[in-house]
């Protein structure tokens, strides 16, 4: 394919739009994200292809494999367009009925529709489901709408229009001015103003500069970046190219976790297609501007999400951070001026260029503008990827979009910001989403992982969990992080084992303070946050562990007796059925009994018991 001109681009857009919005063609949008692949969407797609063929519907029905739709827990998902009928948990056996009823008879198949967890009613249209209704897709505007492996689909949704505008009409100063007006802040978590970052790098002297994209999404509970890369890889490429024009760089790298193989595959396809169209590579759109992007796969080190460590890793070294200054905008990758932005940040850029910075800043709070993508997971009914305007309350996120707590249990906390963040308790749920607002209550916005925890979660155990993570991922370069987090972990383990002493809590607080003040990089400086927020809001649980030697949530094995309370036991036998070690005796209408000799303390019975009768 020869290089495109602007006219060609407009032509492709019109043509593809014509096909994709033709009301006479039904489009079956089958989700092809990692989640749906794992639950069997590939087989469902195959069944769709066969059934459409069999019924002779190929002319009027098109099957499109999209990227992540966002509603991951209910996969495999299928959306029938243009009607917007939303099907969940499909199996290949369901397909003949679905095609017959939905396509030929034009009546939705009731049993395969989404069931609202609160009202127990089936809902047919995607837009009527509360999970989708409260969202505002900007970074995710193409999710579920396009085939990520087809560049024409992206172009039909105004893709690469921004590049034309930027390369033909805008100067680097104009780009940076638009970014500054948009007030877009780094979506990786730190929230540094993107326009300012680009401005520093633009003013840095040097012929070689780099644009880097951080796709090393390591926070446990975060999968926003992966979903964007899987659903809409071209928008990230376009965003990076615009950044390159702004700072005058000719080379870019996407540093992606090696675990994200599907994202890497789709990125490779996208880069190849963009190059074929002349939208990437030498002399882009005949404007004389060169920009090339390579993918660099990480090798499993959490600390490489830190900017200076990430650059060392691309250089082929141990991914250890170094002190700043010098900042990467002056001396970054291979000591050259570099900018590093997160996937979500870049994916917002093309639209800002098309619609303007003022448009982007029209929603949000005073200091946090635009929208933010969250990965909602844990003990919540609706699990998946959501994008909300800044200023939305956490309560709305958990209860309106998330549909509340699963299995009729009670809300305990929502964890934001992963191992650098904190847990927000019930009474602070009306806090609006925004960098400063969330920081004020002891958590951080972070990259967007939001893990909801119910009353069965032990907050001391969670604090231990995060410290274990940090300790394991600490690179070992600076002593406060390497030794300090180890010491904190040892103390937390001691408390979880029922051997805690009152002074342990004071020690934890003191160590937190010292590590925060003296660690080299962000990973260490924020390492104590989960512990501090747990101590602040769930102090009673620490006291129960240390003073009463009791774990109120019944998660810390050392403090459990593995006995059954005959008053609470409803004699249902669920524990008996779940025990893998035959340690439970039970007969109908009799209280169950645990044989402690046989018990392997696997916790299966604790999980199964609906009445909290085991202690």
């Amino acid at each position: 394919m020869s290089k495109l001109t602007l006219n060609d681009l407009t032509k492709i857009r019109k043509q593809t739009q014509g096909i994709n919005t033709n009301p006479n063609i039904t489009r079956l949008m089958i989700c092809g994200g990692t989640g749906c692949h794992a639950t069997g969407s590939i087989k469902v797609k195959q069944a769709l292809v066969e059934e459409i063929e069999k019924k002779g519907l190929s002319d009027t029905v098109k099957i499109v494999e999209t990227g992540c739709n966002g509603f991951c827990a209910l996969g495999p998902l299928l959306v029938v367009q243009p009607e917007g009928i939303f099907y969940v948990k499909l199996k290949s056996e369901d397909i003949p009925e679905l095609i017959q009823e939905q396509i030929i008879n034009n009546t939705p198949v009731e049993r395969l529709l989404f069931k609202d967890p609160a009202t127990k009613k089936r809902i047919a249209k995607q837009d009527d489901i509360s999970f989708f209704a409260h969202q505002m897709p900007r970074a995710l505007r193409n999710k579920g709408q396009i085939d990520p492996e087809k560049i024409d689909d992206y172009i039909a949704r105004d893709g690469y229009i921004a590049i034309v505008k930027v390369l033909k009409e805008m100067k680097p100063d104009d780009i940076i001015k638009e970014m500054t007006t948009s007030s877009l802040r780094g979506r990786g978590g730190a929230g540094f103003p993107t326009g300012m970052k680009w401005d520093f790098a633009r003013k840095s002297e040097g012929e070689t500069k780099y644009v880097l994209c951080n796709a090393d999404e390591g926070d446990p509970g975060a999968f926003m970046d992966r979903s964007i890369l899987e659903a809409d890889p071209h928008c990230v490429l376009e965003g990076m190219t615009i950044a390159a024009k702004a700072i005058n760089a000719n080379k870019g790298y996407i540093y992606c976790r090696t675990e994200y193989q599907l994202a890497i595959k789709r990125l490779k396809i996208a880069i190849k297609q963009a190059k074929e169209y002349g939208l990437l590579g030498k002399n882009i759109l005949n404007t004389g501007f060169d920009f090339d992007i390579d993918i660099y796969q990480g090798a499993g080190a959490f600390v490489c999400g830190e900017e200076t460590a990430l650059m060392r890793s691309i250089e082929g070294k141990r991914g250890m951070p170094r002190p700043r200054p010098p900042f990467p905008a002056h001396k970054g990758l291979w000591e050259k001026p570099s900018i590093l932005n997160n996937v979500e940040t870049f994916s917002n850029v093309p639209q800002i260029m098309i619609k303007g910075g003022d448009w982007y800043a029209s929603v949000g709070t005073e200091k946090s503008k635009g929208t933010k993508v969250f990965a909602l997971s844990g003990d919540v009914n609706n699990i998946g990827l959501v994008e909300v305007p800044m200023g939305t309350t956490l309560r709305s996120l958990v209860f309106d979009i998330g549909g509340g707590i699963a299995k009729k249990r009670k809300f305990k906390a929502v964890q934001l910001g992963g191992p650098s963040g904190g847990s927000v308790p019930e009474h602070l749920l009306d806090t609006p989403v925004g960098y400063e607002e969330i920081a004020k209550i002891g958590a951080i916005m972070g990259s967007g992982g939001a893990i909801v925890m119910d009353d069965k979660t032990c907050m001391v155990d969670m604090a231990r969990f995060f410290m274990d993570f940090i300790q394991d991922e600490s690179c070992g370069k600076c002593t406060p992080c390497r030794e300090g987090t180890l010491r904190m972990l040892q103390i937390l383990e001691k408390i979880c084992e029922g051997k805690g002493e009152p002074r342990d809590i004071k020690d934890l607080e003191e160590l937190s303070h010292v590590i925060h003040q003296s660690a080299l990089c962000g990973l260490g400086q924020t390492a104590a946050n989960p512990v501090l927020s747990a101590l602040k809001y769930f102090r009673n649980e620490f006291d129960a562990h240390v003073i009463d030697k009791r774990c109120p949530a019944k998660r810390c094995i050392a403090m459990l007796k593995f006995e059954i309370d005959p008053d609470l036991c409803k004699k249902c036998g669920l524990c008996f059925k779940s025990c893998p070690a035959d340690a439970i005796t039970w007969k109908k209408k009799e209280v169950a009994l645990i044989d402690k000799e046989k018990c392997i303390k696997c916790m299966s019975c604790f999980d199964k018991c609906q009445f909290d009768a085991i202690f």
Partner: protein
Amino acid sequence: MTCFIKPHHDDITQTMWQKIDIVIETNKYTSGAIITVLRECQEIVNYLPVELIDYIADGMSLPRSEVFGVVSFYSLFSLKPKGRHTIKVCTGTACYVKGIREVINRIEGEFDLKEGGTTEDRRFSLECVRCLGACGLAPVMVVGEDTHGDIAAENVIKSLEDYK
């Protein structure tokens, strides 16, 4: 071709050596490519014996100590042989909250296997990995290339039966 003498190693066949040479040759002049080379070589041999690390270092004209330093830094690289099937159990927050600990206990008990270890018959290796980013399916386990979502202590052994 790379002209260094190939050390003898039981786990590396002649075909593997040829593939390793191609990987080194392709990346030799790209700065920063060592992690890519190590990853691709590990995919060929299934782990990185010290002899191979030295060979790669020589081929890439890098100090052996530096390359060993890179290998030991990143959790992707393994100095020990792995089983035919690697079970990667996700220990991210969402999976943890939803009970991955019980699943790990069950696997360890059933196969007499410890985290980071391999069964004696080299059938399974067990790795606890950081968030796989499939939180919607939590708790999650990946065996080889297959992702298993919503696993529980009760059904995990059954899911593993097919991997011989």
